[in-house]
Structures are given as C-alpha cells and as structure tokens.
C-alpha cells in the first residue's frame, strides 16, 4: 500500500510492486437493465507490467471497452455493477478506494484515450485550453504556464505548428491530429498506465500507423504500461508484447504475440486469425466464424463459444465454462481441447 499523496518533485507516490503495474483479478461486471442482467465481464484476469504492451482483442460486444471503463472506474452505477473482482494498481485495489481518491488516480496514474477523438474533445474550447486543463486542475498551474506546457506536449505528440494551433478548436484538426491531441491530454500528467480504447479505428490506414508509432515511442520513452484495446489483428501484431483474447466477457486466451499468431490455442483465436483477408489467396472465399457472439443476457451453458466452435464436444455444452489454464509454458487458454487446437496445423 502506498500513499495517494501527490508528489510534485517528480518522484512517484505509487510504485509498482516488482515491476507489476496492474493486476486485474477475476473481474465481473454486469449491467442491470429492465430486460434483465447483461453479464458484460465474467471473471476477467490479466496483468500488466512496466513498459509492457498488452493487447485486448475481441469482437464488438466482447467486453473489451467495459473492461477498460471498469479499470478507469468510469462506469455509471446504475446500470453497471461490479459484483466481485479486484483491480490492483501498484498493489492497491482501486475498487476499494473512495471516489475522490480514485478520481485523483485518473489521468495522473491511469489514463485513457478514446476511439473517436472528435467526440472525445470538448467542441467549445480550444485544444490548448483542454490540454492545459490537466495541469491547471491536477497541478494547480496558472494559465500561462499551463499553456506553455500544452504547447510543449503538442510538440511532443508531433503536431506541426503547435504554437500557432494552440488556440484552434478540435473541429479544425484532421482525425489523426485530433487523436494526437487526445494522446497529449492523456499523457500530460505522465501516467504509469495508458489505456487506448481502439485508438485508430476511426482513422485511415496510413494515419493508423503513425498513431501507433507515436504510442509506441511515448511508451518506450516513459516505460508506460499500455493496454491496447482493439479488434484489429494487424494493429496488434505490430506493437503488442502480449495478447489477451476476449470472448463473451472472458479472457479465452493469453499469450505472447508471436506464439499466438503462430499457434493459436483457442478455437476462437484460430477462427479470428483465419478470417484475416490474405493477398496471396485472391479469389477464395474469406473464411469467417459462423454464427453470432452470444447475447450477454443469455450466455450458453458450458463454454460460451460452443455453438460456433468446430472442436465442440459434449463436455463443452454443459457445466461451468472451461478455466483459463496453462497449456504451454507462458501460454494460457480456456478450452478443453487446446492441445489439439495447437497441434492442428
């Protein structure tokens, strides 16, 4: 347990325990709606170390964004509830902190960038003002100092002509530049963990690459832990160290990025990888995973992936979902038949 006091001299109040920044353990999140309880996250566990990039991969509705929001503590209660689980940051369970203590960790310890930077920036204020707000609010800086810091941050995220554009409004920037501004705001207070929720989805491919490069550079410079939430397998391959694949609110596979691409251990991951269009297979049908992701209000018994799985056996259709287990050294998968899936090339 470390003090939550802000230190202005640069030494951090929160220190990672053995290089471990974040430890999410058996996290559950449910949305209690009028139509029933939607179980968005069902026992997700993963860790993040200093300087590491963890990609959380999954299709829409798999619970990736909810995971990010749960870590940030920005889910609205009601309708969202966290019935059990821990989110340990530097050894302290964030879910047990008071809202005020938690708020102080946001931005300065754990920060987040959003998918669509245009809607994530306030349209009525100049970007420099918005970046500077981080310093004014958290560090009590005066206006002109905050402005200078905003300009230097804009330069840091490689916005050309930062000094001239500091008073421009979000809609006057292109999509890529807006995402850079969002990144500048997120890293303003030098957080130890940065969560990027589909940071490049709204951008075109060349800009995507630039933004990913920028994130990678910033992470390298500051030894930040980066959680990259995405559904884009291409983005993941370039930058991630480890990948956690999510399905129906569970982590179904966790592995080193090369291992996972070479030999997926879960049928879902395998299906995902096979569905990437390939230039050398022109004219063939694209292979897709049949069926739809389950309705979160009615997750099937047994393994939630069983209706779509090609390895399905009777054991998959009943009882508890398979647990995440070590199928190879350093590789985790939640499938009864992982060994077969890995071996099946």
């Amino acid at each position, binding site marked *: 347990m470390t003090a939550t006091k802000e230190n202005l001299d640069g030494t951090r109040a929160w220190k990672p325990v053995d290089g471990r920044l974040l430890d999410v353990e058996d996290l559950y999140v449910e949305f209690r709606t009028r139509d029933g309880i939607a179980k968005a996250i069902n026992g997700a566990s993963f860790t993040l170390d200093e300087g590491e990039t963890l990609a959380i991969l999954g299709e829409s509705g798999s619970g990736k964004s909810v995971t990010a929001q749960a870590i*940030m503590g*920005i889910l609205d209660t*009601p309708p969202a509830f966290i019935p059990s689980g821990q989110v340990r940051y530097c050894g302290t369970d964030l879910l047990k902190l008071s809202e005020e203590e938690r*708020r*102080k*960790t*946001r*931005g*300065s310890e754990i*920060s*987040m960038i*959003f998918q*669509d930077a245009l*809607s*994530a*920036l*306030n*349209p*009525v*204020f*100049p970007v420099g003002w918005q970046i500077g*707000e*981080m310093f004014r*609010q*958290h560090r009590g800086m005066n206006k002109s100092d905050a402005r200078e810091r905003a300009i230097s941050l804009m330069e840091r995220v490689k916005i050309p002509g930062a000094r001239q554009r500091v*008073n*421009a*409004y979000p*809609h*006057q920037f292109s999509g890529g530049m807006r995402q850079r501004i*969002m990144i500048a*705001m*997120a890293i303003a*207070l030098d957080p130890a963990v940065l969560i990027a929720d589909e940071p490049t989805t709204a951008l075109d491919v060349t800009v995507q690459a630039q933004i990913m490069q920028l994130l990678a550079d910033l992470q390298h410079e500051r030894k930040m832990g980066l959680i990259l939430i995405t559904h884009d397998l291409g983005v993941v391959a370039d930058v991630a160290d480890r990948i956690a694949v999510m399905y129906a609110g569970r982590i179904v596979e966790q592995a080193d990025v090369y291992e996972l691409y070479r030999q997926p251990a879960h049928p879902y991951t395998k299906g995902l990888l096979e569905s990437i269009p390939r230039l050398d297979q022109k004219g063939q049908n694209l292979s897709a995973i049949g069926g739809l992701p389950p309705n979160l209000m009615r997750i099937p018994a047994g393994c939630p992936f069983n209706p779509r799985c090609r390895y399905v056996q009777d054991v998959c259709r009943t009882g508890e979902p398979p647990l995440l287990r070590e199928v190879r050294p350093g590789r985790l998968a939640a499938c009864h038949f992982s060994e077969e899936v890995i071996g099946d090339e």
Partner: protein
Amino acid sequence: MTDHRPTEAVEAVDAVDGITGDDVLVADQTGAALPAAGGDGEPVRTLWSDAWREMRHRPLFWVALALILLVVTMAAFPSLFTARDPLYCQLSDSRLPPSAEHIFGTDTQGCDVYARTIYGARASVLVGVFTTLVCTLIGGFIGTVSAFYGGFLDTLLSRVGEIFFAIPTLLGGIVILYSLPNEPNSPFLLVVGKVVLALSVLGWPSLARIMRSSVLQVKPHDYVQAARALGASPWRIITSHILPNAVAPVTVVATINLGVYIAVEATLSFLGIGLQPPAISWGIAISEASGIGYITAAPHMLLFPSLFLSLTVLAFIMLGEVVRDALDPKLR
C-alpha cells in the same frame, strides 16, 4: 462572399431590407440566402462566433436589438427622453388629445402620457430582466443537478417542478401577490421585487425542464466520459464540459420568456395586483385607460402604453428567435 464586405455596407443593406415592408419574410429570405460562415483564413469558429456571424446578417436581429437598446435606455435614463415630471399632473388638462405640448396627450389625472410611458419602461424592464435572471439561475441549477445526478434526486426535483408548472402563471401570480399586499408607501424596488418573486416561483420549472433535457443530451457525449477518465471532478465536468455545451436552448427560451414576463407583469398590474399607483408602469397605464368609455373618448391613453409594451415584448421574442435560428446548425 458576403463575409468580405465591409461591415458598414452589410449593415446598411440590412437596414434597407428591414424597412421594406414585412420584416419577418424579408429576414427569413435573407437568412436562408446567406452562405454558412466559413472560408479561407477564417479565424477560430465556435458555436457562439458562428451564431454571431449568422445573426449579424439578419435585419430582424438589428431591429430587435435597436428596440431593446431603446427600451433599456428609457428605463435607465428616462430624463434623456423627456424633461417632464411624470408625477406632475394638472387635473384641468384631463384627457387632452395629442398636441404639440403633450405629444401623446394626457390621461384622466391630467398627467403627460408621453412622460409616463417613458418612465413606465423602468418597471417593465426591471421585472423582465430580474425574473429572467432568477428563473434562469434557479431553473438552470435545478435542471443541471437533476440531469447530472439522476436517480431519486432527479425524480424529486422533476416532480416538484411539475407541481409548480401545473399552476397557471396568471392565477398563481394573483394568489401570491394577494398574499403579499403592498402598503401605499412601499418602496418601488420592494413592489417590483414581489412581482419578480411571484413570476420566478412560477417560471423556473419551464427553464429547469429545458436545462435538464439539454444536459441529458450532452452528458453521454464522449468528451464528458473522457473528462472523467482524465480525472476531472464532478464540478469541473459540469462547469467546463456540460454547461458550455448545454446553455444554448436555455438562452433562447430565457430571451423569449423575458418578453413574456413583461407582458404578464402588465397583465397583473392591469388587474390591480402587480405594481400599483403611484408606481408608473405600462400595465397600470393600460388599466387606467381601459375604464368604461375611455377607449372611445381618449384612445391615445390606451394606444401609446400598449404600443410600447407590444414593441418591447416583440423585440425580446424576435431576438430569442434569431438567436435560436443562429444557434441551430440544422437551420443554416
């Protein structure tokens, strides 16, 4: 592009448009024909700067603004417009028609109608402005709080608002003002204050509802979530992220309501329970002028205060509409 014309020229053209007959029609055509603000080398654009760009090309805006400025000047410095004392009345001059000496004629007591009309602006403007301020502050605060925090607080505040909303303004105003009677020598501001109180008690729910719905609209935006994710406190989120994006509808309705409050004040005074003599107000003047037989015998007594009242109310409603059009990007 019109933007590059000198401002004076634009205004001159607008002014000409303004007097060629039907204001509303001309204004609408002019407004529609103008291109949306934009172009090269454009300085920063915000909602309000865009709105200003849009409004300044509309003659209706300038007409409304000129009328409002005139009325406000009358209210602040009535002596600029008349050297006469509105309380100096010569009974022998009772109900004189307009003449060189009394350009609007005189009333039953022999007071100069012109002077009384000028001095009457003060009560109307004070009631209108203060009621609008109080209603906007109370309504805005309650609307924001109930939308932002939601849940039980929202239910409670919304129901309370609906109770007040259900009371007809005039009826409620009569009841409240009857229970707060004035002494003959009550100070002017106290009398005005009671009217403001009555109208505010009845007027805040409509603004609270509008504020609530626009805060509800702004709240789910990503930038509010982003501000939370970057550690902004609830107060900070409200003041710098929600309010600046949610005030436009309330501004519009408050401007329109200002005119309405002035009309209600006149109505209450007409009924003898708003402001009372010796206070001078348009409502009182209209009330005195509508005695049996006076309308035919001395129509000037009714005409001039009514005209000023109507023009003032009209000016605020026009301004509100121009602001609404300018703030609504869909109408551009």
